[in-house]
C-alpha cells in the first residue's frame, strides 16, 4: 500500500516537474518611453505572435512557443530588472555649433552650446564623441570639404585639450553635401555652417 502511495507521489512530482519546465522561459516587458512617444515590441512569429504596445504589457513565452500576456506594475518591472536597468548607459546627446563665414570661430550664440558640450563630455564614463563638420554652398566643393574638416578638427582639438582620449574622438568633414537647409549653389546660409557633435 505504502509503496503504491509513494509511486503516486513520485508520478505527481514528475508531472509537476514537467509542467514546471514548460512554464515561461522568456519574459518580456515593454517599458515607458523616455520621450513619451509610441513604442512597441512584437513577440513570437507568424500564427503565435503578441504585440506589446502599452507600458508594462508583458508576454511570457514557454518552451513550446505558447504566449501568455498580461500587464504588471512599474514596481514589479523595476524589481525584476533592477540590475539591468541600473546599468543602462545615459542617452546619446547631440549638439550643433554654428560658425562664422569662412571661419573656424563659433558664433557668439554657439559658445554656450560649446560649454554645455564640454560639460557633458566631462560627466560621462568611457565617452565617445563623433564630430561632423559642414559648410554652406559658398565656395568650391573642394574648399568646403577642407573647411568642414577644419571645423570638425577645431572642435576635436578643444575636446582633446579637455583631456578626452583621442582614440574615442572622430572628426569628419562632409563639406556642403548635407545642408540642414537646402539652398542653390553659392548662397550663404548661416544654419548650414555648422558642426554636429554626438556624445555617446
Amino acid at each position: 500500500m505504502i509503496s503504491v502511495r509513494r509511486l503516486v507521489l513520485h508520478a505527481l512530482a514528475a508531472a509537476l516537474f514537467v509542467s514546471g519546465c514548460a512554464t515561461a522561459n522568456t519574459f518580456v516587458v515593454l517599458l515607458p518611453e523616455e520621450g513619451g512617444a509610441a513604442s512597441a515590441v512584437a513577440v513570437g512569429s507568424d500564427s503565435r505572435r503578441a504585440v506589446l504596445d502599452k507600458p508594462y504589457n508583458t508576454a511570457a513565452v514557454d518552451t513550446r512557443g505558447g504566449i501568455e500576456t498580461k500587464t504588471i506594475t512599474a514596481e514589479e518591472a523595476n524589481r525584476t530588472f533592477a540590475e539591468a536597468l541600473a546599468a543602462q548607459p545615459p542617452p546619446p546627446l547631440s549638439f550643433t555649433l554654428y560658425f562664422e563665414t569662412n571661419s573656424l570661430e563659433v558664433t557668439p550664440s554657439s559658445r554656450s552650446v560649446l560649454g554645455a558640450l564640454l560639460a557633458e563630455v566631462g560627466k560621462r564614463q568611457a565617452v565617445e564623441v563623433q564630430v561632423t563638420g559642414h559648410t554652406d554652398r559658398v565656395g568650391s566643393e573642394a574648399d568646403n570639404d577642407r573647411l568642414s574638416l577644419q571645423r570638425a578638427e577645431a572642435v576635436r582639438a578643444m575636446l582633446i585639450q579637455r583631456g578626452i582620449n583621442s582614440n574615442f574622438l572622430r572628426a569628419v568633414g562632409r563639406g556642403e553635401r548635407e545642408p540642414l537647409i537646402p539652398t542653390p549653389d553659392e548662397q550663404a546660409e548661416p544654419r548650414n555652417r555648422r558642426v554636429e557633435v554626438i556624445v555617446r
Partner: protein
Amino acid sequence: MKFVSQSVLAVIFAVLTFDSVSGAAEIGQIKNITGQVFLLRNNQQQPVKPGDIVEEADVISTGTNGSFGMTLIDNTRISAGPNSRIELKQFRFNPTTQEGESLTQLHRGTLAIVSGQIAKRSPDAMKVQTPTTILGVRGTRFAVKVEE
C-alpha cells in the same frame, strides 16, 4: 637616419592598418560594469572594462554580481543584469543612411534595451532572440528575461 624614418613609417603604417581594421569591426563600446563581466571573442575569454570596443559576434557574460551597459553605434543602449549571456549575433549599420539590421541573442539572464536608429528607420530590422522566441523591436524601451 634612414633606419629611423623607416621605423616611423612602419609605425604609421601599423597604426593606419590597425585603425582601419578595428574601425570596420567596431559596433559599440562598453560604458560601465559592476562585478565580473567577460567578453568571448574568437574563442578567447577576457575580462571587460569600460571603454572596451564590442564587435559583431562577441559574447558578453556576467557573473552572479555582474552587470554592464554598452552603447552601439546606432545609439542602441543595451544593459544586462547578473548571470546573463548575450551574443551580438548580427549587426549592420550605415551611419549615412542610418539604416541597418541587428540580431541580439539573450541566452540567459536579464537584458534592458533602448533601441536606436536601426529600429527607428525600419520596424522589425532590430531583433532579439531568446531560446523560446524572437522579438521584433519597433521601439524603444523594453526588458527581457530568460530563465533556465
